[in-house]
């Protein structure tokens, strides 16, 4: 066997906190071979980013390598001199971070930034470096590199910026590319393109990749081998094939279970969540770290810490009973046992009615002529890329942003544009759960006063009844009553979202707007929050407006789904119909881009490589025509008509539905990566 390119040998990294020291990474050994792609996955706080920084010997001031060695090309990074280290960092190891915006210098043209790498690390003369930079931009699939090279970073979309960062990383022809969540900050459609790029580049370059991500599906697409981290330890390692087909650690298996498979609905099964939380790194017991949450733990697990054991020829697991690891999917309870809420299809009065709602800021149309109805007790899912106006629509309905034109009606009664001018009852009926767990609760208030105020204002209770109701709300979201006296900083992200949900339910709302409530959370926590939302809906019969960029989650939870693009609804229909052809071409590309688990790579029939034009330069005609691979003449000049595909499924497109359906079905069957030729239907 050849010598590994990168070898971590029994690495322990500690952080000095105010009073004590915690080991963020403990006794990790792994090796990356030349040309190999190794994926490191785990939930937040598991130590994967700390490990990535250690590979560059780039630990923060209070971080310390307390044991072990980091060997790169058989040389110890932590005993090198500063100048040796500098040479290695630039020339042999390159890094791509999560946020491309802060990795680029905003005052230098991007072509110049790439050329600088060639001049600096490869000592190319000025002109040759510029040529090489253009070549490198072409290599990362930037069309028109000459034009793009002359732009400043702010003129590029997030996806293009990340391509430039990748070009800079590749410019020094590194032996190892460290990718730390390189697609997490990007939209799914852009993420799919970047992942494609990595796959293509792997064939062209001989760099090894250390890919760090919280997203199993993403890692699967790029990597050969993966390591799973939990609470600072490597708990499972093997080839992607082995680990994905038959995980040998209960934690890995539970992670798979908590991700909604593409196509699973709330009626089918509950998502399995992992009970309990990650152990406190400052206070670890003697046994297996996963033991308190493990479904197959025994006495031995409590007293003895397992080593990494062989579970296959190239498969390691830190579990005594790895052969008994539950197969993903087997442990998940079916929904029939728990009864998912019925979706009331036979409509009485709509609960919420939007009539031609628009919102403008200056010349920019954030929302344009939105018509929408939500029935009592229904879950309506809203999807779209960032900037599509999903959150603004939520705020208009909630009364945080008044509509510029159009009306919002609750139970057929028109309501005021701002919440403060609505009646108390109307305010009680529409509540909202926000996206950011860090900002959703006032950090200076205790949970008891956060909930108490909501109960008092929304439910009108005071004194003892207020206290009882607050405690009951906390119990409803499955938090212990001792948390009443805690401040938000003592709570985890998932717990804060639970409190936010309890707050929204304080006055028995009729409609709860959920604006990406789980996108900042780990998948195992997300699963438990989604289950909680289903339970609460069954008890309260509240309708949900669920906004998310994660199609699998929206599909899992929703009865009906709307797809938004540039402030307009382009498709709307029952959840099961929206994900079946015919789709709007935009929906098609969203579905194709969604990362998913399983053997098959996702199909890429529609690449949304062209950036979204943005609400200020709204195109005439169909808003999607600038990126639509099937756009033809009328799309560019006239707004497309709504076409009825039956069962309440509506698509807003100039292309005839049967033409859409035929080509999309063919694309699904062929699983080809090339766009299928499109025959455009006649104008109606």
């Amino acid at each position: 066997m050849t010598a590994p390119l990168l070898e971590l040998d029994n690495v322990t990294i500690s952080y000095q906190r105010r009073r004590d020291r915690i080991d963020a990474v403990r006794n990790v050994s792994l090796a990356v071979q030349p040309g190999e792609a190794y994926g490191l996955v785990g939930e937040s706080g598991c130590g994967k980013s700390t490990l990535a920084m250690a590979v560059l010997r780039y630990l923060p001031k209070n971080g310390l390598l307390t044991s072990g060695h980091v060997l790169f090309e058989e040389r110890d990074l932590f005993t090198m001199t500063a100048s040796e280290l500098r040479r290695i960092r630039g020339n042999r190891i390159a890094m791509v971070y999560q946020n491309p915006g802060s990795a680029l210098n905003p005052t230098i043209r991007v072509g110049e930034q790439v050329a600088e790498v060639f001049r600096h690390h490869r000592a190319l003369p000025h002109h040759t470096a510029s040529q090489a930079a253009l070549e490198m931009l072409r290599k990362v699939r930037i069309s028109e590199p000459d034009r793009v090279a002359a732009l400043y970073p702010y003129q590029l979309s997030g996806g293009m910026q990340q391509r430039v960062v990748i070009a800079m990383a590749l410019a020094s022809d590194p032996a190892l590319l460290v990718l730390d969540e390189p697609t997490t900050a990007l939209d799914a459609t852009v993420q799919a393109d970047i992942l494609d790029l990595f796959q293509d580049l792997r064939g062209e370059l001989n760099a090894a990749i250390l890919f760090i991500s919280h997203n199993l599906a993403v890692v699967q697409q790029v990597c050969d081998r993966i390591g799973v981290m939990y609470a600072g330890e490597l708990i499972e390692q093997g080839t992607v094939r082995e680990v994905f087909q038959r995980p040998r650690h209960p934690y890995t298996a539970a992670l798979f279970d908590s991700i909604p498979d593409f196509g699973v609905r709330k009626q089918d099964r509950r998502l399995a969540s992992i009970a309990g939380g990650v152990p406190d790194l400052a206070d670890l017991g003697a046994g297996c770290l996963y033991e308190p949450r493990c479904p197959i733990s025994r006495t031995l697990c409590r007293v003895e810490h397992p080593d990494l054991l062989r579970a296959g020829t190239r498969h390691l697991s830190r579990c005594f009973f790895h052969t008994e690891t539950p197969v993903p999917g087997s442990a998940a309870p079916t929904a029939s046992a728990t009864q998912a809420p019925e979706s009331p299809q036979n409509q009485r009065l709509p609960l919420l009615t939007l009539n031609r709602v628009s919102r403008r800021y200056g010349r920019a149309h954030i929302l344009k002529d939105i018509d929408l109805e939500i029935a009592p007790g229904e879950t309506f899912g809203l999807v779209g890329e960032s900037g599509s106006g999903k959150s603004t629509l939520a705020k208009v309905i909630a009364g945080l942003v008044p509509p510029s034109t159009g009306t919002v009606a609750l139970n057929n009664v028109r309501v005021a544009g701002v919440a403060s001018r609505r009646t108390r009852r109307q305010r009680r009926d529409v509540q909202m759960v926000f996206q950011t767990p860090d900002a959703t609760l006032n950090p200076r208030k205790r949970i008891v006063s956060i909930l108490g105020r909501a109960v008092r204002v929304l439910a009108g209770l005071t004194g003892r009844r207020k206290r009882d109701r607050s405690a009951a709300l906390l119990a409803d979201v499955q938090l212990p009553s001792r948390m009443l006296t805690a401040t938000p900083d003592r709570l985890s992200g998932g717990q804060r979202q639970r409190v936010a949900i309890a707050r929204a339910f304080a006055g028995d709302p009729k409609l709860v707007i959920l604006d990406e409530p789980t996108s900042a959370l780990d998948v195992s926590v997300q699963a438990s929050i989604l289950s909680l939302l289903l339970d609460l809906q069954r008890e309260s019969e509240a309708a949900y407006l669920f906004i998310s960029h994660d199609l699998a989650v929206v599909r899992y939870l929703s009865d009906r789904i709307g797809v938004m693009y540039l402030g307009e609804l382009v498709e709307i229909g029952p959840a099961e119909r929206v994900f079946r052809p015919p789709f709007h071409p935009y929906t098609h590309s969203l579905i194709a881009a969604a990362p998913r688990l399983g053997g098959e790579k996702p199909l890429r029939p529609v690449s949304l490589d062209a950036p979204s034009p943005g609400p200020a330069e709204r195109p005439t005609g169909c808003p999607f025509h600038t990126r639509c691979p099937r756009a033809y003449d009328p799309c560019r000049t006239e707004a497309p008509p709504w076409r009825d595909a039956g069962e309440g499924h509506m698509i807003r497109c100039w292309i005839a539905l049967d033409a859409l359906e035929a080509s999309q079905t063919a694309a699904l069957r062929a699983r080809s990566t090339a766009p299928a030729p499109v025959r455009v239907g006649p104008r109606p």
Partner: protein
Amino acid sequence: MAETLINARRRPRSRTRFTPARGTIPLAIGVAMVLVWVATSLGAPWLAPYPPSEIDFLAISQPPSAAHWFGTDQLGRDMLSRVMHGGAYVLTIAPAATLLGLVLGTAIGLTTAWFGSWVDEIVMRVLDAVMAFPIVILAMLALTFLGAGTGNVILVIGLVFAPLIARTVRAAALVEARKEYVQAAQLRGEGALYIMAVELLPNVRGPLIVEGTVRLGYAVFTSATLGFLGLGVQPPTPDWGLMVSENQALLTTAPWTVLFPATGIAWVVVAIGLAADGLKEYLEP
């Protein structure tokens, strides 16, 4: 061998060492230095060797000696006693003025941040115009109209500090006002006063405290300056600024008459500055 089976040995937990939180040391030194003067001022009636305004024509402009540690001034008054008493004025005027500035500034800052649009535009432009003048000039103008005196000095310093504090509060409150917990309050239909007082104010506390401490240092300096210009308390009150002013003619012949009160001013300003730095480090690491 690429994959080594790992023997997860447990290292014995290393003994944890107590390291003080950032900024606590300068904060402690600064506070201690101020407390020295607070104690001295409070105890001056009993500790001072002479009454501060007792004139002794037999001991005019004496250099420091055993009888008069800090010497005497041109009226034969004991400088040590006067310096000990003089702290009291600065140490009441400065905190009172700062408090007034904080209350006014916070109210203005929160209001402009929350209401935004034209309220913000008008109020902030007016404050910009006020702040374009040097503080001492503004204070002098105001005191010339109002007349000198302790109460007016407090009022004037408080008023000229309010715009500066308002800016800090507004900047911090603008960040908080966009956060989701404020939107949750709006969804409940909370009034502007509730949102400003209960949701925003506690969350701008950190910058507010830091700004207040910095302002306190400036207030000491400003009140001393106004005293020096004769706009503060009137003779024969033993005020540090006033003492420097009264004795400036003696700077060459009896420098101790200026040195000791000036040192008192510098001491307190430096001490508060030190405390402010430490506090900033501690609150905003």
